[in-house]
């Protein structure tokens, strides 16, 4: 990996753990997803993690903007952005390093839910490990999309709270698009459905890894990270 990205990544990842941020995120994320999962798991009596895969994207709605809100807004607020931008780093390296740090924290959060797989293998029968794998893959991709959106929201403001609110708002839109299809004129419905995260997530969660879904996730991530880099560059256009 590019050494500048790696340096930024290390600094950012460490700063999650030198503040209470990472610990609060990990513990609360594990508690919330664990509670909603185990609540229904024993009632339904099915050997899968569908309950978990349904609840985590909703937990994401607030948790991911919370871990990304400070990535850039905080630096702008402290003025350290000026230091960063006058070091020999390119803007895209800065954005990618920070984004990967948020993604890693998210990944650790998902690792905590592996405890539910252990529960499943102890109590369940006929477990479809393929669907488990694609389910997790879907969760990771959905989280990656939301983190890119959150990073973008953070680059627009120098206030973390505003970045959080706008982040939640955009993430919520992408989450809700395919639930609002009935309100959308029919010629747009296909498009709106295509840009909705849930639509692609449900495909993957069913156990189908379709290149269209993968391309969708990568292009939305790419789009928002590109927009973030442009937002950082915008200081030069003023």
């Amino acid at each position, binding site marked *: 990996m590019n*050494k500048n990205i790696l340096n930024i990544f290390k*600094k950012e990842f460490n700063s999650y753990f030198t503040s209470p941020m990472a610990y609060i995120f990990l513990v609360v994320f594990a508690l919330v997803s664990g509670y909603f999962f185990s609540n229904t798991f024993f009632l339904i009596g099915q050997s899968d993690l569908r309950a978990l895969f349904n609840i985590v994207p909703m937990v994401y709605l607030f948790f991911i903007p919370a871990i990304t809100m400070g990535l850039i807004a905080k630096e702008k607020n*402290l003025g350290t952005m000026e*230091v960063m*931008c*006058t*070091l*020999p780093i390119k803007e895209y390296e800065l954005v990618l390093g920070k984004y990967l740090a948020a993604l890693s924290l998210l990944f650790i959060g998902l690792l905590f839910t592996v405890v539910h797989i252990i529960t499943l293998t102890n109590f369940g029968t006929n477990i479809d490990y393929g669907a488990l794998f694609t389910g997790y893959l879907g969760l990771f991709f959905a989280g990656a999309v939301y983190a890119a959106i959150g990073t973008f929201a953070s680059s627009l403001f120098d206030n973390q709270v505003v970045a959080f609110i706008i982040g939640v708002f955009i993430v919520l839109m992408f989450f809700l698009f395919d639930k609002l299809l009935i309100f959308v004129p029919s010629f747009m419905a296909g498009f709106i459905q295509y840009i909705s995260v849930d639509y692609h997530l449900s495909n993957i969660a069913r156990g189908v890894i379709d290149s269209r879904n993968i391309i969708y996730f990568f292009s939305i991530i790419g789009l928002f990270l590109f927009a973030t880099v442009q937002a950082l560059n915008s200081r030069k*256009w003023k």
Partner: protein
Amino acid sequence: MIEVKKLTKNYGDVKAVQSIDFKINHGEVVGFLGANGAGKSTTLKILTGYLTPTSGDVVVDGYNIQNDFHEIKKIVGYLPESNPLYHDMYVYDLLKFTANIRNIFGSDFKNALDMVVEQCGLKEVVHKRVGECSKGFKQRVGLACAMIHDPKILILDEPVTGLDPNQIIEIRQLIKKLGKEKLVLMSSHILQEIEATVSRIIIIDHGKIVADGTTKKLMNQFMGNVKLSLEVVGFTDAKLTKFQDTFKKAKVKKLKDYYKVNIEYKKKDDMRLDVFNFIVKNKLSLLEMSTQTANLEDIFRKLTK
């Protein structure tokens, strides 16, 4: 070498910097002086590649700011105004991070660290969090970050703001020492600071350069005069007329108990003895006699009014 040609920067309708030109060579310590909002920080931000100019050219060591700003960032060390730092990082980690970004690793980093710790006097805070350091140490940490890669060019935006007198003297000595081998450009609105530290001064006001030269040259150019103030008792009308005939430039003002006299003259035509002899001869009484030579503050106020 820094060469600035017709540099202009507008923020919307606000003209922050208006077509300024200057050239600074290696080994010079230059003070960039101006009131708040005069365009100092904007100019420095352009030189360091943080902002792009509206028009004009900046060439730093042969690199043009429009195309090669990435190369410029490698050879410049920059301490921004108000010294922003990551307060939750350890000083050591911050220096290491900055060094790594600057491509300094392993034993090279150890040497660089030893150098800046020694030069900036950071020994007692290296293993503290930045947030726990006092303001003076924070300033030195910022300075250490700016010079960890031993840059040829050091740009410091108000490096001594908020420090106590002892710390100011330390930083001042450090800057002077650094100026022997580097190009140092520092901004300030504290005049004594600039006067004591730099060899050349550029004064900027409302986005334009109003003066540029060595401290001595500026003094001679703008303030060759000495101001003599007297407080005298015992003037009669006749004596007063005689006094004013003798000293044509004198301005006399009658106050309640005494006369206040101000005379301005060129330094070479010292008048003090003549004035004193006149007072003795005419049996006047002298309460006070003082001279005031020009200082940078007067020049500054005169130029930026």
